[in-house]
């Protein structure tokens, strides 16, 4: 099992290649969309690179809870409700939702996922 730092370096390399960003922009706290400019198609590219770099399988729903964010059961008036938050937490235990919970508008979710979340996700996959 590689260390957290080794995983971070490989995740960073994947993000530098996929997003055309500089090494030093990929800090643990950088958000994928807001800071690194990832667009939806980039996530498909990133998934490819992470699967290859770590020899893991990444089901799309584990990183992109689109079904939750577009469900009338989990979204009320454009905001993710308590049941939706619980669904995301159970699906994505590696993500820090504290900031999102303060203002859970659906469009804010895009700015929630950070580089460190990606590292934690890979750590979880490698440990399982």
């Amino acid at each position, binding site marked *: 099992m590689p260390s957290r730092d080794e995983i971070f370096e490989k995740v960073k390399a994947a993000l530098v*290649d*996929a997003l*055309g960003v500089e090494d030093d922009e990929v800090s643990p706290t950088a958000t994928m969309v807001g800071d690194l400019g990832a667009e939806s*198609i*980039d996530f*498909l*590219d990133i998934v*490819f690179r992470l699967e*290859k770099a770590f020899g893991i399988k990444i089901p799309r729903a584990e990183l992109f809870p689109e079904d939750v964010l577009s469900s009338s059961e989990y979204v009320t008036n454009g905001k993710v409700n308590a049941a939706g938050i619980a669904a995301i937490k159970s699906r994505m235990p590696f993500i820090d939702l504290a900031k999102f919970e303060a203002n859970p508008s659906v469009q804010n979710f895009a700015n929630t996922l950070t580089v460190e979340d990606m590292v934690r996700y890979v750590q979880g996959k490698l440990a399982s």
Partner: protein
Amino acid sequence: MRWFWIDRFDEFIRGRRATAVKNVSLAEEHMHDHFPGAALMPNSLVVEGMAQTAGLLVADAIEFNRRVVLAKVAGADFHFDAVPGDTLRFEATILDLKPTGSLCKVTSTVGDRLQGEAELFFAHLEPGEGVPKLFEPDELLQWLDHMHIYDIGRDEAGNPLVRPDW
């Protein structure tokens, strides 16, 4: 007028790699004013030729059963401009192929000089995923015939490719 940015394939190994050529000619209208007195092929169109080379390689590998679209140019570097009289050779290699997408590396050379290199990411979309039908079957087959894919194409075991009966 068709959007052809490769002239033919010289090598086509199903699911692995392909080489196509593009003869750059002053007869192409876009060259006439690009630039006045100093014609050169825009590298955006070189990328298009690279994408057609790799895109057909990928589409064949998934038996043309999804719509293969160039989703992003993950990286591209060019070292000099292609000009009328040059023959560009595009060599495409599939780095990764999954049902939903593929990643290819493509180089462009003139003689033994590396003109450009790019990493291209294709999305493989199904009907209903936002992309209209790209080709009628007979039109696609005509293009593949122009490209000589079934004349020179081989599978990984070295057997000739069979022209589909669409």
